[in-house]
C-alpha cells in the first residue's frame, strides 16, 4: 500500500502529512519513505498486528447493554500524525498562557470576582452557569491552582490555523490511549523511530504523580495519593486503573473512603488509613452527597468539609466546571488580556453568544451555516449541525434557543484538518482533532503528544469513539 494514488485534496482541506499530491511535508518524509519500502500488503499486516496488540494490552472500553459482547478496543490507525517542532512550540506557549489565565480566573471567580466588577464578564453569566458551585466560594486550593489536569481540544481549519475548541477542565480522559498507542507504534515502525527525532511520552505518569504530590502539605511525611473512580462500569475505567497502576497508587471507589475524626480515610484490611490527595475521576456534582447531588452513590459524604479544612487536596479542585461552560469559554481571550495583559496566542473558534440580542438575531438567521451547542453538554448532545439538519430540525432548535438564549452558543462549521488513514484497503484523508494534556503542579507542563482522534468514515467530522471514531499516535518532533 502506497501513497501514490493518495490525493490530499489540498484545495479543500489542510493535510497534516502532505503539502500536495506525492509531496510529503519535510518532517513526514522518513515515514512516507519507510511505508513505501514495505513489501505489498505489509502495512495492512502491521495494522492488524497493532490492533491485536492493542486488545492484548487491554486498552478497551465498555459497551453497555450487550452481555455477550467483549470489550471493544478504541480503533487505532497506524499512520501517525506528525507535529513539527515549530508548531509544537507555538502550541505549548499558547496552552501555558491559556491554562495560566484560566486558573487565575477560577481563583478570582470564587473570591473577589474582580473580572466581573471591572465589567469584562456579566455577573448573571457567572451565576447562571451550572458549573459555578456556590459551596466552593472562598476556598483556597493549595497554591491557588484549581485545575491541575487539563485536556484541551484543538482543531485546525482549512488554512492550518489552530483553534481551541474546548478546555475540558473537569476530568479529561484519553491519556492512557496516548501511552498505549506509542507502545504499539514502537513495535510497528521501529526503524522510523530510529530515524526521526520523536519526543517520548512515557514520562506522563511520573509527571502526574509529581503534580499530585505537589499538593501535599509539607508536614505530611508519607503521603497517600489515590485515584478515585466511579467503578468498573464507567467507560473510562480502564484508564483509571491504568493510571493508578502506572503511578503505583491505590485505585479507590467512593465506598472505600470515609470521613473519620475530620480526616479522609480509606478502609483497608488493617484498619483505616489517611488519604492526603485525591485524583478524582468523578464529576464535581458527585463528589459529596452532603453538599452536591444528594443521590450520589459515587462520592464520599463529608469530603467537602475535610477539603475546606485543608486536610485533603483534590485534583482537579471542585468548581473548575464553570470554565467548561461554553459561554464562559467565549471569554477566555478576554481573561488572558485581563489577567496577564497579553494577547491570546491560541485563538478560540469564533463564537456567537445567543444571550446577546444582536448575536442571537445573526444566529437565527444563519442556522443553516452554523453549529449550535448547548452551554453545558458534551459528547455531541444538545447540538445542532446546521448544514446537515433539516428545515424542521432547525425550526425546532430555533424555538429552544429563543426559550433559553443563555444556554446556547453558535460557531461556524469548521473544516477540520486531515491525516492519511487506512480505510479498508485504501489510504484516505480523514478528519482529526488533537487533545494535548497539560499538568499544573509546581509549574505548567505540556505533555509532548496528545490524543489524535480521527473520524474513521470518509467525510465524517465526528471523532467520538462511540460514533466510529478512532485514534492515532501523535509524534511531536524535537
Amino acid at each position, binding site marked *: 500500500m502506497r501513497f501514490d494514488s493518495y490525493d490530499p485534496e489540498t484545495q479543500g482541506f489542510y493535510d497534516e502529512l502532505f503539502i500536495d499530491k506525492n509531496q510529503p511535508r519535510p518532517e513526514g518524509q522518513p515515514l512516507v519513505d519507510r511505508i513505501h519500502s514495505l513489501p505489498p500488503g505489509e502495512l495492512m499486516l502491521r495494522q492488524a498486528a497493532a490492533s491485536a496488540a492493542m486488545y492484548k494490552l487491554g486498552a478497551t472500553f465498555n459497551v453497555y447493554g450487550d452481555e455477550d459482547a467483549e470489550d471493544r478496543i478504541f480503533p487505532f490507525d497506524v499512520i501517525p500524525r506528525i507535529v513539527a517542532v515549530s508548531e509544537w512550540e507555538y502550541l505549548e506557549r499558547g496552552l501555558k498562557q491559556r491554562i495560566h489565565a484560566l486558573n487565575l480566573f477560577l481563583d478570582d471567580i470564587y473570591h473577589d470576582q474582580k473580572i466581573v466588577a471591572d465589567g469584562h464578564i456579566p455577573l448573571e453569566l457567572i451565576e447562571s452557569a451550572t458549573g459555578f458551585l456556590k459551596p466552593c466560594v472562598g476556598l483556597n486550593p493549595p497554591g491557588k491552582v484549581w485545575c491541575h489536569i487539563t485536556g484541551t481540544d484543538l482543531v485546525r481549519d482549512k488554512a492550518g490555523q489552530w483553534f481551541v475548541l474546548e478546555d475540558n477542565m473537569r476530568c479529561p480522559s484519553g491519556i492512557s490511549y496516548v501511552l498505549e498507542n506509542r507502545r504499539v507504534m514502537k513495535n510497528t515502525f521501529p526503524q522510523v523511530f530510529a530515524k526521526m527525532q520523536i519526543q517520548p511520552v512515557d514520562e506522563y505518569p511520573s509527571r502526574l504523580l509529581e503534580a499530585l504530590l505537589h499538593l501535599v502539605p509539607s508536614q505530611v511525611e508519607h503521603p497517600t495519593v489515590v485515584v478515585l473512580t466511579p467503578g468498573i462500569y464507567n467507560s473510562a475505567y*480502564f484508564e483509571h486503573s491504568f493510571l493508578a497502576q502506572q503511578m503505583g497508587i491505590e485505585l479507590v471507589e467512593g465506598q472505600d473512603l470515609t*470521613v473519620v475524626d475530620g480526616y479522609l480515610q480509606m478502609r483497608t484490611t488493617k484498619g483505616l488509613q489517611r488519604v492526603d490527595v485525591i485524583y478524582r475521576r468523578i464529576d464535581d456534582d458527585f463528589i459529596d452527597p452532603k453538599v452536591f447531588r444528594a443521590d450520589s452513590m459515587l462520592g464520599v459524604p463529608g469530603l467537602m468539609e475535610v477539603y475546606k479544612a485543608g486536610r485533603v487536596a483534590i485534583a482537579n479542585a471542585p468548581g473548575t466546571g464553570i470554565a467548561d461552560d461554553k459561554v464562559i469559554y467565549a471569554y477566555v481571550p478576554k481573561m488572558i488580556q485581563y489577567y496577564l495583559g497579553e494577547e491570546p496566542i491560541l485563538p478560540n473558534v469564533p463564537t456567537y453568544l445567543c444571550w446577546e440580542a444582536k448575536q442571537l438575531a445573526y444566529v437565527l438567521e444563519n442556522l443553516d451555516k452554523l453549529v449550535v451547542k448547548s452551554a453545558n453538554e458534551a459528547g455531541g448532545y444538545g447540538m445542532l449541525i446546521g448544514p446537515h439538519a433539516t428545515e424542521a430540525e432547525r425550526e425546532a432548535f430555533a424555538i429552544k434557543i429563543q426559550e433559553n438564549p443563555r444556554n446556547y452558543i453558535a460557531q461556524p462549521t469548521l473544516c477540520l484538518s486531515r491525516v492519511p488513514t487506512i480505510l479498508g484497503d485504501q489510504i484516505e484523508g480523514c478528519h482529526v482533532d488533537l487533545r494535548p494534556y497539560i499538568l499544573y503542579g509546581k509549574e505548567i507542563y505540556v505533555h509532548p503528544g496528545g490524543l489524535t482522534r480521527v473520524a474513521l468514515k470518509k467525510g465524517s467530522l465526528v471523532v467520538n469513539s462511540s460514533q466510529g471514531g478512532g485514534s492515532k499516535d501523535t509524534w511531536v518532533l524535537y
Partner: protein
Amino acid sequence: MLSRVANSIYWLNRYIERAENVARFLDVNLNLLLDMPSGIEQQWKPLVATTGDRAFFTKHYGDATPENVVKFLVFDRAYPNSILSCLQTARENARSVREIISSEMWERVNAFHMMVAEAKREDLSLSALNALLTAVKESSHLFAGVMEATMSHNEAWNFGQVGRYLERADKTSRILDVKYFILLPSTEDVGSSVDELGWIALLRSASAYEMYRKSSVQHRITPAAVASFLILDAEFPRSIRFCLFEMERSLHQISGTPIGTWRNAAERTVGKVRSELEFVTISEIVSDGMHEFLDRVQQQLNEIDHDIFKTFFSREPVAAPVAAAAAVKGLSQSQRQ
C-alpha cells in the same frame, strides 16, 4: 491494602475455582453414564441437588434431562453459579483489581470467559461438551499457575489463596457427599463392579485417581479409603485437610501471627477445623455418618467465610454508620453461594 480489593481477589479466586468444580461435577457424571449398564436410571437429579439450588432448577427447567442440566450448570446466565456466570463474576472482580493483579492474570480471566461465552453460541454435541469441560479445568489450572508465577506472593495473593482453597474444600466435600449418596443407596450394591467403577469415577472427578493408587496402602478401592483420601490426606492438593492447611498458612501470612495461635476469628475457626481433620479417623467419620460429617464441614467453611468477611472486608469505622452500611452492602453482593 483496601478491603474492597482484598474482597475482590478472594472472590476472583473462589469463582474461578467454582467454575472448575462445576465442570468436574458434570464431567464425572458424563463418564459415569457411559460406564453404566443400560437400564440403570440416569443420575442427573443428584447433580442438581449438589448445587443446593433445586428450587431454581425446577422452576425454570422442570425435568432433570441431560440437556437441561447442562444448560443450567454451564450456560445459564440467570443462574449465578453456572460456569458462565461464575466466570463473568470472576471477570468483574478481576477488572476491579486490574491494577493489583498481573496483566497476565487479567488476560487469562478474559480469555477464559470468552471461551465459554463463545461455546454458548454453538449447539454442543456430547463430545464437544466433554472437550469444553476439560478446557474449563485446564483454564482454571492455567489461571492458578499464572497467578503463582506472575504475581508477588503478597497480602493480595494470600487472600486469593484463601478464596481458592476455601472454595475447593467446599466443593470436594460436596462431590463426596453426593457420590456417597448415589453410590451407596443401599448396602446390597457394595462390592458390585458398578460400584467400583463409580468410585473410580469419583476419584477421577477430583483428579485423584492416580494419586490415590500411589498412596493407598491396600491398593484396593473401598468407599472408606476413597473418602479418607479425599477428606484426610495430608498431601493431595484437593483433599479437605490439605485445603484447610493452605488456608491457615495464608491467613497467618496476612496477619503475621504464628500458626498455632490466633488473633482473629478467621484464624481461630480455620485452626479448629484443620486440627480436627488432623486427628479424626475415617472410621469415626463413617460411624457418625458421612453425610452429617460433610454437612458440618460445609457449615464450618461458611463460618470461616463469614469470619474472613467480618475481619478483613467489612471494617466498619466508628463514625459515619450510614456510609459504612452502604459499603458493606456493596461488598456482600458477591457473597452468593
